[in-house]
């Protein structure tokens, strides 16, 4: 039976639907199934399951290490080896992909049939190019960051180390389910799984109250989004009768809607179908930290830095982008969903950037920058550019992971110090050169310096799209302005922390950190010079694992420029081709008009978009892309120069316009003093958390107290009353269990007689047979 279900490919009539097969020709049945599975064109190779199984194995092994009290780095090496193998498997999945999506079934999961309807959701995986694109960077980055964490987490070797890597593996597994699942239920499983792992890892330092509070906040805020996702999945099933991708995207009704939407006529699309996209969108906003649900992400930085880099910058938070890209056909048929996505993304990008400008905690700045960049990705999705969104996800994954890991190295080396006023000239300290250089690479990418950075190209793709698409010019200008802010706050960090006079005050984790042996020797003379107040403190420079990972990521973020150009230029390069051959395939008709005479659609899904006046957008009378290179490139340089002027040190490190000579004083201070309440408001995150507390949390708390008393007095009273009745009854019949053998025998015989008598009476009264 079990083997039979393993052989069951997803479109097989399930056993329940076919009860005539119930007679014993089991072997014959099995043979038929196997034959069918072999012939089925869409069944993929089973080794693909390795990508999912290896992280599970890692989780189990780490749990065993924890159980046996392992006190070495073996958990890390196990995790790295397994994830690297998973990455190789993903790579071979990419190389062996033959152009048609396929599914690989692990086992039968839900297979319910009722009436003429059925609910099928198997534990199987749907592989198309979007899946491959996402899995490539998920497994790749996970491997690298595990390597980084092997060193970073070394102060916790023992139970905590095992716990960290177990949750790490579980996260990769959940992410794989989310991205690779062949139905919305698998996606939901993965969605909740990554949420759980995120919760576990944010609260990794569970003795620290702020970490616990942050973990709870992340979990609860995500619940709001998850409710939207759950309802969206439900509505999809209700409306389209399936949750399986292969069936959903081939659904006749959906195609009718898409064709209707292509003519700009949404009036014939039922509201139910349009609501699906809106509900899924809420889910995406929660997971990807978009306004108004972004508040959990900055607090999530309480987790260990590798977690921030992997989960809260590179992979998990892009799940929302994946969700919308995956269900792009469904979003296309909703009149309001994509415009809302575009605007929310834009607002989030701007808002987060303004908050990021005023923060002093460098990890928090990176967190707000993540929120802001996610806003760009959502704007891209709303602007009908799935390719732009996917490309930005990819480049952002590399350079943001790099930035976080470099900040993490600083945090690790300076005993938890993250305040940019208390650190200066880190790049010039002995042993910190690599961190300085790679951080510079990361900052350049985030700022989007023209031509030489991948961040520039992916951002340019989004900005140009905004000017090409009619009606979104405003969004374009806001995003250009945000890009300038981005360049400013990014280089503010760089100019303050990494260059300038050398100075460092250790953080409050001083005692925990300094007494362990690692790196002590080489760092004794590498300490910051005289002016710091703690004579005992010696920062320890990162070891080979951290440096290797930083260098690889820096190279990757530079090399990913080429991904926009290699392969199939008409599809926006390699990323474009990956997106084009998936359900996210969509080409804005405006983009096509503007750049490409004609785009060949080899895709499985016919695509179309709203038809309007397809005049290609112009910026300063130029082609949008060329114009954007000019505008956003100059904007970025302008932002960097502003940062250099206000925060840069004297001399060329401040590009000759900076004037900072001390770590905690700069030209910005004077302006900030004069600017009134604005900087303070921004520093306090525009009091969004407090506003939420006032308008949402407090009323809910009051209501919950009221309900608590209703529950306690009224309902509990009733329940206790009903609970009391069975007990009374029990007291009455308890004597029948006297323990006396004869009594039991008599009761049995008597019971038989009474029962027969009662039945006789019933039957005679009802005039039954016999």
């Amino acid at each position, binding site marked *: 039976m079990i083997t039979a279900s393993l052989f069951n490919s997803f479109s097989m009539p399930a056993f329940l639907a076919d009860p005539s097969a119930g007679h014993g020709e089991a072997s014959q049945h099995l043979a038929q199934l196997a034959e069918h599975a072999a012939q089925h064109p869409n069944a993929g190779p089973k080794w693909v399951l390795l990508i999912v199984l290896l992280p599970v194995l890692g989780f189990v092994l780490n749990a065993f290490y924890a159980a046996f009290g392992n006190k070495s780095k073996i958990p890390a090496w196990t995790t790295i080896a397994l994830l690297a193998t998973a990455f190789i498997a993903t790579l071979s999945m990419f190389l062996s992909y033959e152009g048609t999506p396929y599914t690989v079934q692990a086992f039968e999961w839900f297979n319910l049939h009722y009436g003429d309807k059925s609910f099928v959701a198997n534990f199987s995986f749907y592989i198309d190019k979007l899946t491959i694109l996402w899995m490539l960077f998920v497994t790749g980055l996970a491997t690298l960051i595990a390597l980084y964490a092997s060193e970073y987490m070394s102060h916790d070797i023992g139970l905590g180390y095992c716990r960290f890597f177990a949750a790490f593996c579980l996260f990769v597994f959940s992410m794989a389910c989310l991205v690779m699942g062949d139905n919305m239920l698998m996606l939901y499983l993965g969605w909740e799984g990554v949420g759980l792992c995120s919760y576990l890892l944010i609260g990794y330092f569970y003795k620290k109250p702020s970490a616990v509070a942050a973990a709870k906040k992340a979990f609860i805020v995500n619940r709001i989004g998850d409710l939207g996702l759950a309802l969206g999945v439900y509505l999809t099933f209700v409306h389209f009768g399936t949750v399986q991708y292969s069936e959903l995207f081939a659904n006749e009704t959906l195609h009718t809607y898409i064709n209707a939407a292509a003519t700009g006529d949404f009036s014939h699309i039922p509201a139910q179908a349009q609501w699906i996209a809106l509900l899924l969108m809420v889910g995406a906003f929660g997971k990807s930290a978009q306004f108004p649900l972004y508040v959990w992400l900055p607090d999530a930085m309480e987790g260990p830095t590798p977690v921030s880099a992997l989960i809260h910058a590179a992979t998990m938070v892009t799940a929302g982008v994946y969700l919308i890209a995956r269900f792009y056909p469904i979003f296309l048929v909703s009149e309001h969903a994509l415009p809302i996505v575009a605007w929310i993304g834009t607002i989030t990008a701007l808002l987060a950037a303004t908050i990021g400008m005023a923060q002093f905690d460098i990890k928090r700045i990176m967190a707000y920058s993540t929120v802001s960049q996610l806003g760009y990705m959502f704007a891209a999705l709303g602007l009908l550019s799935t390719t732009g969104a996917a490309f930005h996800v990819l480049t952002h994954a590399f350079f943001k992971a790099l930035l976080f890991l470099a900040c993490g190295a600083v945090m690790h080396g300076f005993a938890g110090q993250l305040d940019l006023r208390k650190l200066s000239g880190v790049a010039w300290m002995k042993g910190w050169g690599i961190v300085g250089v790679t951080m510079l690479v990361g900052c350049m990418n985030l700022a989007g310096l023209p031509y030489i950075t991948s961040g520039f190209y992916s951002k340019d793709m989004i900005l140009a799209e905004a000017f090409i698409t009619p009606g979104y010019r405003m969004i374009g200008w806001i995003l250009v302005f945000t890009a300038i802010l981005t360049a400013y706050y990014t280089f503010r960090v760089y100019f303050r922390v990494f260059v300038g006079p050398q100075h460092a005050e250790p953080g409050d984790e001083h005692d925990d950190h300094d007494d362990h042996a690692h790196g002590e020797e080489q760092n004794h003379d590498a300490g910051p010079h005289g002016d710091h107040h703690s004579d005992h403190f010696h920062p320890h420079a990162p070891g080979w694992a951290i440096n290797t990972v930083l260098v690889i990521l820096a190279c990757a973020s530079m090399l990913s420029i080429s991904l926009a150009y290699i392969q199939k230029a008409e599809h926006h390069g390699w990323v474009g081709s990956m997106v084009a051959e998936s359900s996210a395939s969509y080409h804005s008709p405006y983009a096509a008009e503007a750049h490409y005479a004609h785009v060949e659609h080899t895709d499985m899904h016919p695509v179309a978009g709203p038809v309007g006046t397809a005049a290609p957008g112009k910026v300063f009378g130029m082609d949008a892309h060329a114009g954007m290179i000019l505008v956003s490139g100059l904007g970025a340089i302008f932002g960097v120069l502003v940062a250099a002027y206000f925060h840069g040190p004297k001399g060329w490190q401040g590009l000759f316009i900076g004037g900072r000579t001390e770590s905690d004083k700069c030209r910005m201070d004077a302006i900030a003093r004069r600017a009134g309440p604005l900087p303070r408001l921004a520093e306090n995150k525009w009091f969004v958390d407090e506003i939420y507390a006032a308008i949402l949390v407090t009323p809910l708390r009051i209501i919950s107290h009221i309900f608590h008393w209703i529950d306690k007095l009224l309902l509990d009273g009733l329940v206790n009353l009903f609970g009391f009745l069975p007990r009374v009854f029990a007291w009455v019949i308890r004597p029948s269990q006297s323990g006396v053998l004869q009594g039991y025998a008599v009761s049995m015989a008597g*019971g038989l007689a009474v029962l027969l008598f009662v039945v006789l009476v019933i039957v005679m009264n009802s005039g039954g047979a016999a």
Partner: protein
Amino acid sequence: MNEKLAILWPEIFLFIATCLVMITGQWPSRAIRHLTPWICAIALTVAFFAAMSSPTTQGMFPAIVPYAKMLIAGVGMLILLLLSGTVDRELEREVDNGKAFSSIRSNRGEFYAFFMFSITGLMLTASADDLIWLFLALELTSLPTYIMVAISTNEKKSLEAAVKYFFLGALGAATFLYGFALIYGSAGSTNLNEIAQVYATNGISSIGMIGLLIAVIGISFKIAAVPMHFYTPDVYQGAASPVAAMLAFVPKTAGFLALMFILGTAGWASNGNHLPVELEATLWIMAALTMTVGNILALLQSSVKRILAYSSIAHSGYMLVGLIAGPGEAGGPFYQNGIAAILFYLLTYGVMTVGVFAVLASLEHRNGTEADDINDIRGLCKSQPVLGWTLVICVLSMLGFPPLLGFLGKVGLFTSGIAAGQYALIVILGINSAIAACYYLRLVATAYIDDDSKTRPTIYPSPFFMRKIAGVISAFAVLFLLVFAQPLVNGAYKASEYVPAIAGEPEHEDHHAQDEIKDNDEHASNEVAIITND
């Protein structure tokens, strides 16, 4: 004959192992003596795989044999793990200290042999197609358990429990044997298929109906249903926990299989997809009373074993609902099929109840007596996390807590009852589930919430690692089988296939020739085909 043999391979393997076990258990060499459980394990494994390829039969439930026997061998294996170390502890300790082995005092041989006999009897029940066979198989299942109860501990209460169990068991057996006799009298045959044939053709005579009723009530001793439930708490409490776990699963499974076969002769189809009204009324009253009495009396107990005994009664009541619902329409879906629900629930119940008893068996007082009082499990999640969580998971599953296996089992019973239109009974079932939550949650809370470690009586893990393993396997099964439930559900569904006897079949003189009956079956179906064609 060959066909019959093909079905009986698992029993044959088990029987061979039983004979071996009787010898090795008494062997003076310690190594060989300790082989005994391993021989049982091998035999159960072989039986499991032999059962997998069992052919279908010609009876009312043609496909039941593979599923039922695989279920029996699988849960039997869990119980076997649990039984380790039940007997001969003192003797083995003396032998360790240099005393000579005395085979007179050793119970190992007969203990494992009786266990294997009982499992063999259970499998024979699943293969039964004749009243006499059914009676003998049921008794082969039960008789060894009487002695197992007696020798499971050195205490007097075990002997008392065994004596009670034996006498009341004999009374129950006498009752259903009387019923069988009346059935034979009314149908003129002991072959179940022929009885079904006669009942379908001529209707059920009064004497036959009384026979069926008495047989059903008598067999309800095996499943511990009202009014035959009285022995349960006393016997469970008197027996050692591993044996109590066996009592919860083995006779219950035998009883439900036997009830299915007996009720199958009357047929669910005879009264518009219902049982004959007398049988339905009897079962209805039994089901309602059984679950209510079981759950309500469990509320007042302070002994965990007694709670489990009453919960075992209550679970029988739940499963009786599936029996009333019957197999539903031919080819109907799983959720309308009460028989499939029972077959699936037996698996569920077996796994989770073994899990809870395994926790009890893994705990003992300093003087070697087993844990029983509810105070013994207080704060278990902290003092013994593995056992504590096993207990919590298995008990929540018994309660039918959603993501666990027990939930899925209960859903099947609920939906089949609704599909059969037994709304009142479903309401009673729902209320009972709520009452059950009281004492299940009490167990969970006692284990999970540590009151005060000072008041906790000193309780230690017992030295038998296998018992812990049995518990952990059960907990894992309860946790994760839901994910892999589809094959199990399919298996239960497939096994539940019911072929009602076809009316209008002339009675045959010669009951011995199996082949002829088969021909007649074909003949009959041809006739029906012709009639429908007209």
